[in-house]
């Protein structure tokens, strides 16, 4: 089963990998008359330790709910987002299940899944293919408790290596290589192409010597070669297209707490310049509470044991994260789609949440989840059944999001359909 999917993915990438659309820069777009529908974008933000439930969940549901303390920073955008309660993946494992936020599947069980435990953002990135310079951008770090948030996963069950900070993100988005470097890069692409030809031959002759089980293992290698071939041809094509001009200076890396606003700004610019349509932000690793003037550690505070003082500081950290997300929404809503009256927020689905439900008890149920923008009807607190036999999988929301993104799919991981009550505007 996995094999056929691999094959279809290859065909798909082959088909879409060659034709490259120019990025819809504002300047370029204004030359066109009326662009068709603006492309849909997806931004997923997740943290390591969740949101303190008592301060996160609103007590009322529906349209007239009162914003909770942790949702207050989003007041201005109240009509632009929905908060969902009682959604999760039905998984356990505490810190060891946080990485399932966008996959719905634990990494060690990914093999058994039809789509290999791919994360939602990467599923969307596959769909974008060659249409943008970066099929997706994942920003985060390998550090953090038990490896950190680890949100983006490939079909083969490996983690997408994250971009480590605003400086590297800026360089990738905006810094063009000089002519010498460009030539060298182009030469390197040629070399890598001929290396791939050679090693593909090696793999094929090796495959004749192997038993069926080992050949399955080698298939991973073969499909990786093809993935990289596609990537090389993309790189080659995009090399000819200059990167957009930067409207800000190159930022410094100062640790995630201070970097968070800078990263959001860069993500907004990446969407605005159509450098990518999929971005994922892992708020883990180097998020230091000390940069908020808090003397205690973030992880320690998440083990608050219901001690008031600890809860207060924990909520302060979490509120800062919501504030930055709110600032990001503000930014997106201020950016106009090229050639239209619509804002970037209207075409950007911005998901905010965590794979951790309650850090004090290490549970991964009732995950905190907010979805903003993207052209859905918002402004509500949607509560789903809490009873174990009636629960709605969080993956249903992901199916709705993927469909909105343009994918013709009716499932994702352990979904049972699209998310009911979530309608397009």
């Amino acid at each position, binding site marked *: 089963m996995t094999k056929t999917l691999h094959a279809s993915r290859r065909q798909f990438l082959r088909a879409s990998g060659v034709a490259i659309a120019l990025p819809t820069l504002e300047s370029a777009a204004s030359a066109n008359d009326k662009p068709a529908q603006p492309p849909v974008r997806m931004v997923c933000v997740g943290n390591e330790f969740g949101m303190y439930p008592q301060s996160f969940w609103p007590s009322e549901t529906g349209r007239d709910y009162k914003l909770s303390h942790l949702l207050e920073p989003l007041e201005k955008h109240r009509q632009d987002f929905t908060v969902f309660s009682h959604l999760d993946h039905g998984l356990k494992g505490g810190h060891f299940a946080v990485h399932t936020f966008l996959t719905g599947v634990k990494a060690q069980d990914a093999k058994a899944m039809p789509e290999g435990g791919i994360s939602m953002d990467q599923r969307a990135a596959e769909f974008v293919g060659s249409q943008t310079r970066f099929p997706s951008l994942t920003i985060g770090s390998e550090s953090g408790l038990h490896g950190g948030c680890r949100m983006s996963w490939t079909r083969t069950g490996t983690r997408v290596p994250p971009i480590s900070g605003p400086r590297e993100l800026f360089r990738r988005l905006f810094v063009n290589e000089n002519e010498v470097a460009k030539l060298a890069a182009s030469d390197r692409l040629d070399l890598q192409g001929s290396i791939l030809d050679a090693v593909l031959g090696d793999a094929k002759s090796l495959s004749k010597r192997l038993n069926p089980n080992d050949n399955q293992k080698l298939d991973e290698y073969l*499909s990786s070669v093809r993935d990289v071939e596609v990537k090389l041809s993309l790189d080659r094509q995009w090399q000819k297209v200059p990167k957009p001009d930067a409207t800000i200076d190159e930022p410094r890396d100062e640790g995630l707490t201070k970097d968070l606003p800078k990263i959001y700004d860069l993500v907004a610019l990446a969407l605005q310049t159509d450098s990518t349509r999929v971005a994922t932000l892992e708020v883990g690793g180097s998020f230091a509470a000390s940069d908020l003037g808090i003397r205690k550690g973030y992880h320690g505070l998440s083990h608050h044991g219901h001690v008031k003082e600890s809860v207060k500081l924990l909520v302060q950290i979490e509120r800062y994260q919501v504030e930055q997300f709110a600032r990001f929404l503000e930014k997106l809503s201020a950016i106009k789609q090229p050639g239209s009256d619509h804002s970037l927020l209207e075409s950007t689905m911005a998901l905010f949440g965590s794979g951790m439900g309650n850090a004090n008890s290490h549970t991964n149920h009732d995950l905190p989840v907010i979805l903003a923008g993207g052209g859905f009807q918002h402004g509500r607190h949607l509560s789903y059944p809490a009873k174990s036999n009636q629960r709605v999988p969080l993956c249903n929301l992901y199916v709705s999001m993927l469909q909105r993104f343009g994918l013709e799919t009716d499932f994702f991981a352990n979904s049972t359909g699209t998310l009911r009550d979530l309608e397009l505007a």
Partner: protein
Amino acid sequence: MSSWFHLPSVSRVMLIAMTALLIVTTAFADSPNANGDSDGFANVVRPFLATYCQDCHGPEDQSGDRRFDQLAIEIDSDNTLIDYQDIVDQLNLGEMPPEDVDQPSDEVRQKVIDAITERIAAYHESNRSVSDQPILRRLNAREYRNTIADLFQLDVTIFDPTQKFPRDQTIEHLDNVGETLVISGHLLARYLDAADQVVTKAMGSLEPPAVQTWTFKDGFRQQPEIDQVHRKTNRFAHMTLYDVIGADKHEGAYGPILDFAAGVPLDGIYEIRFQATAVNREHPYDPEFLGTDPSEPLRLGIRPGNREVGNLHLPQPIEPLLAEIELSDEPQEYSVRVHLDAGYTPRFTFRNGLMDARNLWSRLIKTYRDQFPKNLKNGIVAARYNAIALGELPQIHIDNIQIRGPLHQDWPTASQRALFGKDWDGTLTERDEEETRERLSNLAANAYRRPATEQEVDRIMSVFRTRRAVGKEWHQAYADAAKAILCSPGFLYLEEASSAGPDYGLASKLAYFLWSSMPDKELIRLAKSGELQDPKMVRQQVVRMLNDPRSDAFVDGFLGSWLGLRDLGSSPPDRGDFQAFYHYNLDEAMREETTLFTRYLIDENLPITEFLDSSFTFVNRPLARHYGMDPPEGYEFQRVSVSDPRRGGLLGQASVLTLTANGIDTSPIVRGVWLLENLLGTPPTPPPPDVEPLDPDVRGAKTIRDQLEKHRSTASCNECHRKIDPLGFALENFDPIGGWRTSYGRGKPIDASGELRGGVAFNNVVDFKKVLLERSDQFARALTGKLLAYATGRPLGPRDRPVIDGILETTELQQHRFADLITEVALQL
């Protein structure tokens, strides 16, 4: 509290097996004698199960998800095997039937054990099929880096071509399981980049490098925060180090030479000469207040930095300790030689310096108000200035720095000879096709750990020709072809049996087991000559390999895969509660203790029971203080005898106690599960799906014991937790970083007593270790299983049991000595 949800695959297999079993065996339920019963197996075992087991594991109740009334009479599949093995293990341990029900006589018990054991052996005998597990596995990042180092004779202290690889997935802590080590497009793209870096580095400079000298005499700025003070106090005449690098917000933790920020131009050995002074070793303040020991000489460290990575006055991801020097209190000149990679600059650090100087400035003035002028301004700027200018804090001054190198470079370099061939003369003249082919073929054979096939060399040559065709010079085209070798499956995967015969595969398996790297010339020679087929030769090689320093990679890799030691530090202790951890670099010290201890067991071939309790260990001064032991002389690690019975063995080592806590608090469950999984080899089954998790509430007087007791009052929880919790409680006197404690604070005393199933009671960890020693057979089996899994790169299944039994039978005569055990495991490869 969560690591144990991370289900080891064996128990997952067992659960699936149980389900399958129920379906399969229902067919036999109507006619229990369908299989016939010639030798009385059913007559002995069946009634026993009915009498002593089926009340809890029968139609009414299926405790622990086990049901025996429907168990097949024949062992006809791995599923049934698992159940019978489990039954016999429980009977052997005396854990079942539980002590509160009717017990069989010893004679009956033994008869059943014998009957089942015999039947299991017969099953194994009839199932000696070739393993159907995948055996192709790729190198993990650790192995890749070591292999690159050996293949190209590269110093990898600083150089890490795997830095951007996606992190390898582990299973049951094992980082070398073929099934889990996946190659993705992301990884292959990084293999291409890494190959480029590696070959470029191996090729190095094309001309013999000239030795250069750089001298720095003044203008020693360090970092903006303290520069303003130093401008006034010494006009940057020298560097001043205050903090240790474990500080939170560093002030004067690093002494970078900012005039040398671009670093050295070439890889190589460099001599660093400088003048240094240990200032204020003896100071007027309370040593407790500063947390430094005035009797210790101040110690200087040298670590590399790279300005491309970030600020040179702050920590960087790659900054191994290159040198350490004890300083005299008088100004004196020092000289060290260190390896530096191109682009890296040396940075000075203070090994036993102050902690969090940024906070200390004002604390010092507040605490010793009378020693500072009155009416000082408030704020960090004034506090910093006055504490530095008027205080007498311990600090290191450095000036007159001279860097010279690269030194002692052979020409051509060892790496160039590894790349181009050992007869390489360093001239870059064009070589003909035949010579090129031969050189590349030799390199490929080294890289593939077996002769390269003609077709493989053809393909490498085609890369070479393509590169020549686009105008590359000979040496550049050669290097590009070498990069292809590093991306080939021949290099990246370990093959069981190559086209060149199985002996090369064995040489590789031995090398990756004991060195986590490629086989050396000797192993390859033995593979080629066929001598490796002789088990005596394998024994001889294991001895040789364990004596080689490369076997440190085994200690490192195996401790990571057995105890999870590589995770130490992945859940950092709270800075407020455990400042010592950061001030004295305890995590490095903890890791070192367990590593040296294990190394010693190998070198001296000691019985593995030393892991459970031991009369010696290895400590440095900070770790000794952490344990409340007398600190040894000097700053290096020393073997010391352990007179405190609480500390001997792994369970007294801070590494294990820290990695089984989460940095904030301890959980008897986590530690109990860790013990069951790693020391006793009996991982508990996972909790039922609808179990209510603990929501720690520390507001009241509740201790973890109270909470768990409540938990255990539920029958379904008690089933497993009476097995788990007591083990963890035995370690409750150890805090989250392994320090000894007698109360949880606020007058809540610690009770480390417990009772194991079977009624064995203990009062504390000292008693508990005696209980463990009585179960050392179980420990030996668990450790052997871990070694075998690590050696073969696959998690074990029920069919591996006879192999483990065989190994244990051999090593038992000598009390299971560790090096013996490793040797016997190697013989199974």
